[in-house]
């Protein structure tokens, strides 16, 4: 992307004379921005602009009907004294910390099971993937609620084994388990990505390890894990960021209230309630910006720590 035409390396070997080249560069710049226009407009009008204004709003009191009133850091200070906010942070953290690793563990385990040349791979892959496509929908949230309801099939199945957990939907101690099961159920998407990664690992590595007498555990630790680490990293990052943003399922399962006893008051649900039920838009903006900061910090930590465990092999895909 050198600007100066005289420094261009290819100019000496190129047959076309200098003026034509720079004219083409100018035409390219114009064409580039013309083609980029849809994205650029959207980026400015729907992303950058709103981000700046929500940053501004987060320092104000704004209810959509009167002009925003500057209150400095008040929203941020109030947040940390707001018990429901703190609860929503706790609920979301629990969900992210337990749900994401469980989902990825299931995805990896089943991807390894499927990574062979047996018949029926296509069928299994598709069947396991299907829940990922529908899992976040309202329909599935309704079904989940019905299945985990009192005397629903889950409760009945458990009581068949003599287990009584005191219900799920109405029991604040169990709703998180139900939400985590819902996300683990959608392990198919990361599984498919793992599977593609596993297929890239050369089989002779495993053969050589077998010859050296390595068992399955050592093969996993010394071959599969390091070779797959870029894919694990990708899945971990994407799934974590996604988990922070769960909304529809929590809304439907708790009738939009985050109950019982605030046990499904996820971060985004509380943000929605503050912003669009109470019309405390400044407060909700502060929540949104905190989320951006937290997700940003987590992404940064992931990238920083990745150097110690993610191995990129020299050859590119």
């Amino acid at each position, binding site marked *: 992307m050198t600007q100066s035409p005289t420094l261009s390396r290819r100019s000496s070997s190129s047959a076309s004379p200098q003026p034509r080249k720079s004219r083409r560069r100018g035409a390219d710049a114009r064409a580039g921005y013309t083609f980029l*226009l849809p994205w650029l407009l959207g980026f400015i009008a729907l992303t950058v602009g709103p981000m700046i204004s929500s940053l501004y709003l987060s320092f104000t009191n704004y209810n959509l009907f009167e002009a925003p009133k500057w209150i400095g850091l008040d929203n941020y200070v109030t947040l940390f004294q707001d018990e429901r906010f703190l609860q929503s942070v706790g609920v979301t953290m629990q969900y992210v910390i337990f749900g994401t690793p469980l989902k990825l563990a299931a995805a990896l385990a089943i991807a390894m*099971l499927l990574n062979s040349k047996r018949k029926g791979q296509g069928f299994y892959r598709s069947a396991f993937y299907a829940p990922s496509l529908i899992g976040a929908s309202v329909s599935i949230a309704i079904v*989940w609620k019905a299945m985990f309801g009192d005397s629903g099939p889950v409760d009945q199945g458990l009581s068949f084994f003599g287990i009584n957990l005191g219900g799920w939907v109405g029991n604040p101690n169990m709703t998180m388990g139900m939400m985590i099961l819902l996300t683990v159920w959608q392990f198919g998407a990361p599984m498919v990505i793992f599977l593609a990664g596993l297929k890239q690992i050369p089989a002779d590595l495993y053969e050589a390890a077998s010859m050296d007498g390595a068992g399955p555990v050592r093969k996993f630790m010394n071959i599969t894990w390091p070779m797959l680490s870029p894919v694990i990293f990708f899945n971990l990052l994407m799934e974590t960021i996604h988990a922070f943003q769960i909304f529809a399922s929590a809304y439907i399962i708790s009738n939009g209230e985050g109950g019982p006893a605030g046990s499904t008051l996820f971060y985004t649900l509380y943000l929605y309630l503050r912003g669009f039920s109470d019309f405390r838009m400044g407060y909700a903006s502060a929540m949104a910006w905190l989320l951006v900061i937290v997700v940003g910090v987590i992404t940064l930590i992931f990238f920083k720590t990745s150097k110690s465990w993610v191995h990129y092999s020299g050859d590119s895909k």
Partner: protein
Amino acid sequence: MTTMATPTQPAPTKNPTAPAYNPKSESTTAKRVKSTIFHIVALALVAMVLYPAIWMISASFKPNSEIGGANNALWSNNFSFDNFITAMEGIGGVSTLTFFTNSLILAVGAVVGTVLSASISAYAFARINFPGRGLFFGMMIATLLLPFHVVIIPQYIVFQQLGLVDTYVPLLIGKFLAADAFFVFLMVQFMRGLPAELDEAARIDGAGHVRIFGSIMLPLMKPALISTSIFSFIWSWNDFLGPLLYLNTPEKYPLPLALRLFVDQTQSSDYGAMIAMSVLALLPVLVFFLVFQRYIVEGVSTQGLKG
């Protein structure tokens, strides 16, 4: 999307001439046992994973008295279409067919907008050299990771002041402005895989960017365009937060919002109809999945697309 065909994985060690020490019959039976165990385990897992879907379909045909309670068998002698008939009647005087139409309008709009805007923008990123390209590309990638909640409040305020709340404009405008960075990224990756000689040859023949894009790139990008269409359709079809924020009149509701209304109004009194309506709402997604399985699963595995 054929890029992942792996040349690695050589055939298992060829050892055709060792029959004496390694009786073939024994090794094949061992293999067969192993393979049978694999299929039993895999099928059991499939049954577990698909159970909620099967339960849902079974419940949608059952009378209310047999959903939950002592009757949890998947099979019933009283299967009927009654729940679907109730579900089709709709809610609050609006027929379910209207909700379907609304969902369809939004989804088709999303597909058209996304395919157009994402492919045009991706061409700029992938094929044109212009100052600032790297910077904008980095920003586009950053928006992939950005929680979109940070933009919904100001967006809502603006659309409210423009009098566009309770219209489809706020739900569709982002699609026409390539706001789903995932699709732009997908297409950039795909275009980068196409040989550069194509453009060079066309340029020597005097073709401009519009011609190169329209008559060379677009036809070659069919697989990426199809993946994008499928996923933007399904995402729009399942979207809940957008319609929840912007739509107020039930006549304009797409299916997910209608479902919520249904749940609110009937509560648990008519479980059967509620579940039948959930099935109806998922039907197009399931049909899409059955028809385009390959594309969907390949799209996920090569592009890291989410479900």
